[in-house]
């Protein structure tokens, strides 16, 4: 569905993505991981056309997205920070998005109920708490039936009940055969939800594959420790890793 080919992006002199090649072609939940500043958000924003790549291209369902905007009809997006116009009411915000997309939201009523937002519909967004705003954000992101959903830190500021609802929601969307991309720092969430993991480090893809293969490659039982190994720059134990190490040793000699 999404193919990224040799993507380069720098802000000023600071390279953020340097040669990312990646494709998401099967439906499922993909967790995009990496330390702060590793380029996760920039990667997502490039797919959405918010950041303009310096080099390389992104194909969405086979078509180059550069300068396009129609393809975004097929993507739902949950921004990292839930901040909306202070003086609009919740219902007006949702109506605004409906207005822009020119499409009736299929699941809005159900989602409002799911996150218990009925009492807030007539409240101004500026008066809501951070957690409630994040729930509004979730409704906004899931109310359409788009084939791709992109989530930037979806668990931000949610209470445990809302978190469980969110996980249920993600499962449902996955069952429908959608592609979900999520950045997060919460490893429990990844272990519970993700089918595949993409690990970004300093603008490069360090690992892409299933959770099991990541753990196997680093010979660890938990995801957290496997990731700690990547960050400490230790080579993996896969066949590939052994060859690399052998080559390195050979060169040194």
């Amino acid at each position: 569905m999404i193919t990224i080919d040799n993507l380069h992006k720098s802000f000023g002199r600071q390279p953020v993505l340097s040669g990312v090649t990646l494709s998401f072609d099967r439906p499922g939940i993909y967790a995009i991981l990496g330390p702060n500043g590793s380029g996760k958000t920039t990667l997502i924003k490039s797919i959405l056309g918010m950041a303009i790549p310096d080099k390389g291209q992104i194909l969405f369902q086979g078509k180059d997205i550069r300068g396009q905007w129609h393809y975004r009809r097929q993507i739902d997006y949950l921004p990292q920070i839930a901040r909306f116009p202070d003086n609009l009411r919740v219902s007006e915000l949702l109506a605004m998005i409906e207005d822009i997309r020119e499409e009736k939201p299929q699941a809005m009523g159900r989602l409002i109920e799911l996150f218990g937002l009925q009492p807030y519909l007539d409240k101004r967004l500026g008066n809501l708490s951070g957690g409630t705003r994040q729930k509004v954000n979730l409704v906004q992101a899931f109310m359409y039936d788009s084939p791709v959903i992109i989530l930037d830190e979806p668990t931000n500021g949610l209470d445990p009940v809302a978190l469980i609802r969110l996980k249920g929601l993600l499962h449902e969307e996955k069952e429908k055969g959608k592609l979900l991309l999520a950045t997060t720092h919460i490893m429990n969430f990844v272990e519970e939800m993700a089918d595949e993991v993409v690990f970004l480090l300093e603008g490069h893809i360090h690992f892409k594959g299933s959770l099991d293969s990541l753990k196997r490659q680093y010979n660890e039982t938990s995801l957290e420790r496997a990731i700690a190994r990547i960050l400490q720059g230790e080579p993996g134990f896969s066949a590939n890793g052994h060859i690399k190490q052998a080559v390195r040793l050979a060169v040194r000699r």
Partner: protein
Amino acid sequence: MLKILKYSFFDLMRSRWAYIYTAFFLLLTVSLLWLSGDIAKVVASLMNVILVLAPLIATMFGVMYYYNSREFTELLLSQPIRRRHIFFGQYLGLALSLSLSLLLGVGLPFVVYGVWGSAEVWDFMMLLVVGVFLSFIFSALSFFIALRNENRIKGFGLAILVWLFFAVIYDGLFLLALSLFSDYPLENFAIGASLFNPIDLSRVLILLKLDISALMGYTGAVIQKFLGTALGMAVSMAALSVWVLLPAWGIQHVAKHKDF
């Protein structure tokens, strides 16, 4: 674009600052009308306030609005809509809400006072037109500056500096140049120089309309003498329109290439 405009406009019209801005003009206009009673004099006094205040408020609102809605703009950017439409929608929503505050605050008291029957109705209209022009120009300038600067403090400082330049510094430099080169014919220079300052232009426009030569100053007098009242007003109007279009073009140009 109209969709974004509609919601930005609602958002801004409901903000506390819009109420304060409207109330300030209401109070000022009512008290001036009540104290003086001469519409031409009230228009001249209001002119001096609007020429300084409308650009200042538009500048501050423009910068604040852009930075405050930064995160929401990102959500809008992820929607199936052109970038240009997002930013023009936001800018026009801002400029229109500022204009409406001004029109209500200044207009209502005049209408209640009975300006429609009087001879000075066009002076009053000119005041409103200039106020609206200044709101559009300075909110576009500040929106453009905010778009160019990720750093909020820098953006805010720069925008205020631009206002200060046109409202105060420009006139000082202009007078300095006039006195330094007073041995030379300066008429063309004076006309040209006032075209480059929207606040000066606005002042000239109103004074031409009011026909108060004592207040007209050097540029006003020169424009009246060389271009005549009608042509002078037409040229000033055209220049003000360019002052709106130029930063608006800048907004769309910067928005097109910007990373969010």
